[in-house]
Each structure stands twice: as C-alpha cells, then as structure tokens.
C-alpha cells in the first residue's frame, strides 16, 4: 500500500507539489489527471526518488516503509516502477545487458542468485510477446533510435520483465497509435494481479477504456482537488478542468 501524506516538493526552490494526500491500496488502479504543468510528472518523479526534486514536507510510505529514505534503485527493488513520460536513450548499453543488470540487482536485493543466462533469454522472449516488442528492438541499445511509440512499448516491456507491485504510467498512451495502444494496454492488463497496483497518468479517456481505474484524481496546481469514481474521467473529457479549479481568489497568486 502506498500512502502519501501532505507531500510538498519542488525543484530549485520552486514549490510544485503543495500538499498531496493519496492512498493506493493493493490491487487498485488510480487514474491521475490534470492540465499541463499541474505536477503529475513531478509527483511520479518524487515517488521514484529523482534526485533533482526536493521534498520539503510530508511523507511517503510503501508497505509501511519510509520510501523517502530509500535510494531510487532500492525503491525499484521494493517493487516500484515508473514508465517515463519521456524515456531517455542510452547509446551503447544494450537492452539485454541493461535488463540483465536490473533484474539481477533486484534478485540480489531479495537474496536470490542471478538468473542463469539461458533462463534470462527465455524470460526476455516471453515478456516481449506480451507487448509484441520486436526482437530487433530488444537487440538494440536502450531506446536508441526508437520512435516515440516504440519507447512507450519498451517501457511496458521492461515493466513486464521486472514485475513491479506498483506501476506508475506517466502518459504511456501518448505517442502510441490506436493499435499499439490496445496492445500495450492489454499487455498491462495481463500483468495485473490482485497484489499489484497502479497510478495511471493520462489526458484521455481512451486509455482508461482499456485500463479501468478504480479511482480518478484530478491534480491542479500541485493539489488533488477532486477524487471520484471512473465516471469522473468521462466528465473531464466532456467538460475539461476549469469547473474543478479552486474558488476564484483562493489561490490566485500561485497561478500567475
């Protein structure tokens, strides 16, 4: 279970998250929506421990552990995965070596031996199928020369490899064509278990038609202003966010 309490965080002295409270229970899928610049990616980055962001107040616990005290790699080993909004390319580091290093580091953290080479390659093959990732891509350097959509598909492939218990999908749908979106979303659904939970960040209902969220949150200017059931996403699609903005006058200075 992920528990975020009164989280304030920012970058270079600029506050972006202004008091977030969020609880994601085992097995739940939460959708997070909100206009550009609201702080959705910032929240994702803070959860996974991006060193550029500074937490000034509040707490995040994960299954009772103080997440903020863990290094990014330890958070990953504890089962947290972020599908990045803009995955970087890493020339010269092959997907195979990268995934091997990641998987074996996690195994080591949990007291397991490295996976034998043959088993590892078999696992790569199996997981590739889930998101229909081309073998050619899996043999290249990480994201090098991948198209926008291919990168997103590759994120979910890595998720499949690492079997996280909390997945954060930061606009994984953007850049995917209609068919790819279906494949990737169905792949994501295949990976779900009653023990896994997810935070799905999106601007569109489309993805949520495949991945049915249990809860929908709206983040505006660093705060969650509304939480409701899946019907909220449909309403936002219709009406936008303006009707959800805090009362005029309340927060004016922050908007300028």
């Amino acid at each position, binding site marked *: 279970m992920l528990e975020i309490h009164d989280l304030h965080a920012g970058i270079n002295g600029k506050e972006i998250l202004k008091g977030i409270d969020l609880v994601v229970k085992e097995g739940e899928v939460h959708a997070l929506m909100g206009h550009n610049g609201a702080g959705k990616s910032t929240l994702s980055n803070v959860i996974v421990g991006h060193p550029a962001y500074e937490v000034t107040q509040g707490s995040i616990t994960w299954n009772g552990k103080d997440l903020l005290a863990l290094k990014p790699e330890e958070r990953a080993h504890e089962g947290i995965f972020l599908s990045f909004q803009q995955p970087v390319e890493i020339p010269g580091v092959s997907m195979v070596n990268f*995934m091997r290093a990641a998987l074996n580091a996690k195994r080591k953290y949990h007291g397991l031996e490295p996976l034998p080479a043959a088993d590892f390659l078999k696992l790569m093959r199996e997981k590739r199928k889930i998101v229909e990732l081309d073998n050619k891509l899996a043999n290249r350097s990480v994201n090098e020369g991948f198209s926008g959509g291919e990168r997103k598909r590759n994120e979910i492939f890595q998720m499949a490899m690492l079997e996280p218990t909390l997945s954060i999908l930061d606009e994984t749908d953007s850049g995917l064509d209609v068919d790819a979106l279906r494949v990737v979303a169905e792949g994501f659904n295949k990976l779900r278990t009653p023990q896994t939970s997810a935070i799905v960040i999106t601007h569109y209902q489309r993805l949520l038609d495949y991945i049915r969220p249990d809860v929908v949150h709206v983040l505006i200017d660093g705060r969650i202003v509304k939480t409701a059931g899946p019907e909220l996403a449909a309403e936002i699609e219709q009406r936008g966010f303006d009707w959800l903005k805090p009362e005029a006058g309340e927060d004016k200075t922050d908007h300028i």
Partner: protein
Amino acid sequence: MMRSEQQYIDLFTAHHEALSAHSVPAMNALREQAFEDFCRMGFPTQKVERYKYTDVAEAFAPDYGVNVRGLAFPVNPYQAFRCDVPNLSTSLYFVVNDRFYDDETVKRPSLPEGVIIDSLSRVARERPQLVEPYYGRLARSSKDAINALNTMLAQDGLFIYVPRNLAVPRPIQVVNILRADVPLMANRRTLVVLEEGAQLQLLICDHAMDDHAFLTTQVVETFVGENAHLECYELEETHSQNHRFSNTYVDLSACSTATLGSITLGCGLTRNRTDVTLSGENGEARLIGAVIADGEQHADNNTLIDHRAPNCQSTELYKYVLDGSAVGAFAGRVLVREGAQKTTSQETNANLCATRTARMYTQPMLEIYADDVKCSHGSTVGQLNDAALFYMRQRGVPEDEARLLLKFAFVGEVIDSIHLPALRDRLHYLVEKRFRGELGRCAGCGDNMKCGGERQQ
C-alpha cells in the same frame, strides 16, 4: 638548478664506448649525431606545440639506471605468456626492458618463409641491408628530443619484416616486459617493414613486472609498402610508477592501409606521439584510441596525419574516460598538403570526465592546403548523462553499476572498431574489469594475480 638533460649528457659521455660496444654498427652510426641533436635541443618545454600537455623535463629529472652493458634480466617467459590474449592464437615474442628476449626457454613460433621477427641488433649485424635503409629514417633525431635520446641510448629492440606479397597468417603478439630491481630507464627501438603486398596483424602489450619506477623511451618506425596492409594494436597495462614516452612513425605507400590502435588501460605518465604519413595515392590510415585513467594518471596522445598524396583517407577516433584526478590530453593535427586532392579525413575525440577533479585537454587541428577535400573534426568533453543514470537506477540498476555501464558503453565504440574478434572480446572483458577496479597490475596474466608474485629469480 641542474638541468634534466645534464645526467643524460653525462651518461652518454661516460658510457659512449660501452653503449656502442654492446650494439651494432647500423645503430651506432646515428648515435653521435643524435647526441649532438640532443645537446642542441634539450628537452622540449611546454611552450613547444607538440609537448604542450606533458612536462618532459620533469619526467626525466629523476635518476634511473640504464643498462648500458646489455646485461640480461632473467624472467620467466611462461609467466609472461599468460599475458596472451586467449583464443587469439598469436605467435608470441618478448622484449624485456629494451632487449629482444630469446634465451633457451623461449619457443620460437614457426613463421612463413622469409618473415623475420627477431632482435633488431642481431638482424642489423647479420643482414644490415635490411636495417640500414630504414633505421632512423622516419624518427629523425634532429626533430624530436625523445627520438634523439632514444637513438643515443638504444642498443637493441625488435625487428619485424614481412616480404613481398606475403600475409602472415596468425597475429604476432609482442609482450614488452619491464623488469628490474632498481628504478630503470629502458630505451626500446622497433622497426617494422612490410614489403609491397605484405600483410600483418600485430598486437603489442606493455607490462611492468615490478613495482619499481620505470622510464621508457620507445621509438617505432613502420614502413608499409605499396598495397600492404597493417593492423597494429598497442595495449598498455602498466602501473602508476611507469613513465612512458613513445614515438611511433608510420609511412604508408600507395594503396596501403594501416589501422593503429592505442589502448591505455593502466599507466603512470604516458605520452604517445603518432605520426602517420600518407605518401602514396589511395592510402588509408585508421587511428583508434582509448584511455581509461584515474588517480593521478596522465595520458597524452599526440597525433599527426600528414596527407601528402591525393585520394587518401584518414579517420581518427579517440575516447577518454577520466576518473579521480587524472589528466588526459589529445592533440590531433591533420595536415592536407598542397596537391593532396580528394583527401577525406575525419577526426573525433570524445571524452568523459567522471569527476570534477579530472581534467581533459583536447585540441583537434585541421590544416588544409588543397581545395578539393572532405575533412571534418570535432571534440567533446562531457560528464555522465544524469538522465540516463537515473533511468537505469529507476529500473533497479545500482548507481555504481549504472555509471560503469555508461562508461563501458562510451569506450565500447572504440573497442568495437577493432578488427580482431578475440582481441575485441578480451578488451571488453579487461575494460570492464578495469572500471570495476578489479584489474591488477597486469590482468592479462589472470585474475587477481600479480606477475611479480610468482617471478622466478
């Protein structure tokens, strides 16, 4: 203050006769002139363009022993044999300090008829016509103090000769071993002659067997005949007490090709000068280099590619990864002379400084006196990519490991461009060990084993 030069002048004056007595006429013939040149020039200061980044006089100031009487240093070559690059199945030769080593324990690999790999002084004595036309012709003592000093003091070295139209089937591996009980200066000389149409693959490994301070001068002169093809890779795996000054000269005749690789995995102070002359049409020179340095290590590569003939190609790729307080320097000058039309040349130097205290100097230079050419050059100095680092950590790769993967990927481009598959594989392995800090002084010899530890006295 005593000038650094003085002790070498004194040494030569005092031991001139012994130096000559333990060498051969072909080498002795240039000794006096080299001495005069050295006295006239002295060591270059850092104001001299090609020595901007290395303080030569300082490196030569300490008092090292010089083995003027050619005494043999016993080593166990089978110890050194482990420096072999496995699966490469090379023909193996040794040079200990500055002498070709072939006592009765060393097996002589069998070579095709006419190919010579032997002691330079022996060949010069027995078949001077093979040495005299070449010795000192490229490495002029009047032009460079290291050339002068080496020519003054060198008594032996390595001679490689491949006759016309012959391809040496297996790579030749030369293991240079530094071995001493006191601080030692070694002056090594190498002459490589490929006749028309000849082919050779050469791997030279530099090792230091003892913890003593070493100072080496090395002069390599390489003649690549028309249509001949040379691949030569030099791998240095010495230690922080080693000071290496190496000058390599390569002359390429028409339609010949040369790949020259220089990999510095471990060093103290290393200064490599590489001068390549494309003197015939349709020649091709490919220079690659990688430096991995940390601590107080200093690695300076200085290259000149001299396009004298039309229709030649040259490419150059050097990459450095500097950690700790290491200092790296790369100065690469490409000179396209008048009349060298249709030259294509590409020069790249990319560097990674993994710490704030590491320093890199990079200076690619293009000088063009012909109008129909295609030349480019570029250099970069950067840090590890933070976004990539974080991406990897998010997936669970520990920070140190992520750094290592990025450094490894960076240097990988150079290693991947090596044509010998077994050497390429071995270097990937050695480079990874080097970054993990698991490389002993001489890791080619086997895991966690120090050569010196099992030395036979």
